[in-house]
């Protein structure tokens, strides 16, 4: 009995100390869908977290949290244990984030790639990866000899289709004979399948390989086969030093630092952020010098123009596969259209899987 009492006393004191401590210090929590060592999506989010930590703010993270019921439990746990700002970094965390936000009005929530902001303490953010795809398209159009670009696609969602379209439009601009061949693998993450897809595209005449999947397998296949490739999410250069022309890098660090400081100082506001090359949320790895100085300069200029707003990835006239006009001459696609994009532009082969 005495022991039981002592134990309870200790736990009460412990909890008290924990909550006091929690109240005292500003803390930021992160929820990841994959392991921090995936060398892709989650890896880049964790780099962002490290930057927040380096700015003098305490952070914690939970990795490999499945989307669904588990996610809500984890987010709730973070909110309960005294985190003041919580980043939930996958599309599937959208509803759990909003649900937990309702019960914790004093905690701020930031959800990546979603669109639901049901409560005033939920903000959303994403990156304009398609601007990077435009640059890849330009390089691909110039570098291809077979006029065939191989594209490994994951799932038919607007994010992926936007990338295919942006790349194709840019490639057509510099090379009207370009063909984009697409293989859907229906996974974000299966090195075996991704490399088989890359090999199939190469065997079908593609001499440029790009991917909207997360492993480094496709660039390694490209390296072996002696064709060009582009890295995805993080700099994959060391996996295919000869083949990679550049990589699109997701850089969340500045955003995470800015929002964490705002939340700490009480200036945090709900907002929907969609940043691109301009803000640096989308960055490009160093360009491979094999492209030649002229092309590198061209691409660097295009990158500057996209960043300054002088150029836009979706500038009209843009037609769909049947020849219907999507964006009128001289106009640019608005964000609403981009966010819901579900048709291919002219020049892409095949149908979108429904």
């Amino acid at each position: 009995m005495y022991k039981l009492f002592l134990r309870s006393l200790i736990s009460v004191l412990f909890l008290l100390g924990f909550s006091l401590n929690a109240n005292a210090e500003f803390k930021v929590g992160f929820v990841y869908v994959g392991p921090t060592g995936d060398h892709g999506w989650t890896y880049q989010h964790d780099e962002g977290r490290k930057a927040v930590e380096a700015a003098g703010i305490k952070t914690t993270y939970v990795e490999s949290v499945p989307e669904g019921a588990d996610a809500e439990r984890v987010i709730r746990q973070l909110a309960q244990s005294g985190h003041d700002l919580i980043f939930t970094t996958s599309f599937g965390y959208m509803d759990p984030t909003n649900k937990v936000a309702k019960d914790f009005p004093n905690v701020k929530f930031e959800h990546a790639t979603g669109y639901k902001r049901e409560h005033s303490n939920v903000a959303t953010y994403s990156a304009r990866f398609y601007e990077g795809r435009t640059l890849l398209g330009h390089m691909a159009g110039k570098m291809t000899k077979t006029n065939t670009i191989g594209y490994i696609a994951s799932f038919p969602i607007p994010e992926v289709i936007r990338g295919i379209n942006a790349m194709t439009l840019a490639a057509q601009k510099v090379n009207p004979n370009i063909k984009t061949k697409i293989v859907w693998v229906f996974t974000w993450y299966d090195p075996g399948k991704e490399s088989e897809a890359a090999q199939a595209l190469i065997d079908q005449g593609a001499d440029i390989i790009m991917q909207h999947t997360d492993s480094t397998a496709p660039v390694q296949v490209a390296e072996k086969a002696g064709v060009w490739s582009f890295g995805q999410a993080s700099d994959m250069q060391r996996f295919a030093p000869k083949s990679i022309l550049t990589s699109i890098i997701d850089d969340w660090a500045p955003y995470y630092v800015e929002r964490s400081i705002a939340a700490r100082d009480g200036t945090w506001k709900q907002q929907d952020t969609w940043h691109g090359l301009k803000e640096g949320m989308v960055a490009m790895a160093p360009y491979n010098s094999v492209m030649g100085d002229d092309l590198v300069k061209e691409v660097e200029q295009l990158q500057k123009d996209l960043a300054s707003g002088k150029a836009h990835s979706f500038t009209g006239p843009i037609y769909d596969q049947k020849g219907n006009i999507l964006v009128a001459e001289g106009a640019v696609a608005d964000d609403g259209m981009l966010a819901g994009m579900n048709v291919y532009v002219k020049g892409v082969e095949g149908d979108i899987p429904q």
Partner: protein
Amino acid sequence: MSFDLNFIGILIGAIMASSVPLILAASGELITERSGVLNLGVEGMMIIGAISGFALMVVTDNLFFAVIGSMFSGLIISLIFGLLTQSLLTNHVATGLALTIFGIGMSAMIGKNFVGIPGKEFPLLFPNLKESIPFLGPIFFGHSIILYFAFGLPFLTNYFLKKTKTGLIVRAVGDSPTSASNQGINVTLVRYSCILYGGAMCGLAGAYLSLIYTPQWIENMTGGRGWIALALVVFATWSPIKVLIGALIFGGITILQLHMQAVGLRIPVQLLSALPYIMTIIVLVIISRDSRKIKLNTPTSLGQIFYKEK
């Protein structure tokens, strides 16, 4: 699709390479199952093999050690399964599932420090012949030694089960452990050996993925191939040669459907993606419809716990 002969040769070579992990894992599991043990931990043993092979390659910089080590770690992990099911008489299905979950988690933990390290070039045999002989070159040459081993394995397994005394003992244990035991056969020992052999082959299958097929370590990189190997054994009605055929069909259609997509055939992509599974099942069901033979090959005591009364 271009149809020149050399291209078809390259395609066949690619199909062979992609079916190797299935052949290895399924051949190992086949022996385990013929002894009456149902080990659903194939996926877990494969992934453990994949990470240990890769980790040893990085640490020792020696591919030979890496391959041997992956087999050894598959063997160790299957020993856990053996201890639980044979000595502690736990349920095969539950233990096997637990082994898979354990393997995936364990490999992720060990793998933490090995993510993002590029793999090493695995030596391929006769790369010159591959280039110089059209059509036949890419089919027969320029593969790793493990591929040749994998393609010989089903025939060796078949010979072992049908023509050797030890093979007969394995089958006897799988069909009727009680009678075998009464004949003086140590059922537990036989089953242990078969479990360990299966584990080693699954480990090798995993190492093939992380060392040769996609030379790198990524969490969960086996991507369900263990489950496909398990299904192959059943649909091939426990015949090693049919396992080989099934694995080739599966690998073949997987790669062909990617080519069909790349060519832009207007077939729904979802159907194409499902095609490998559908075709493999259809073909194996057709070639194994002889019910007398199925009866002959099916280990009657599969998944049942054997307990020798003293």
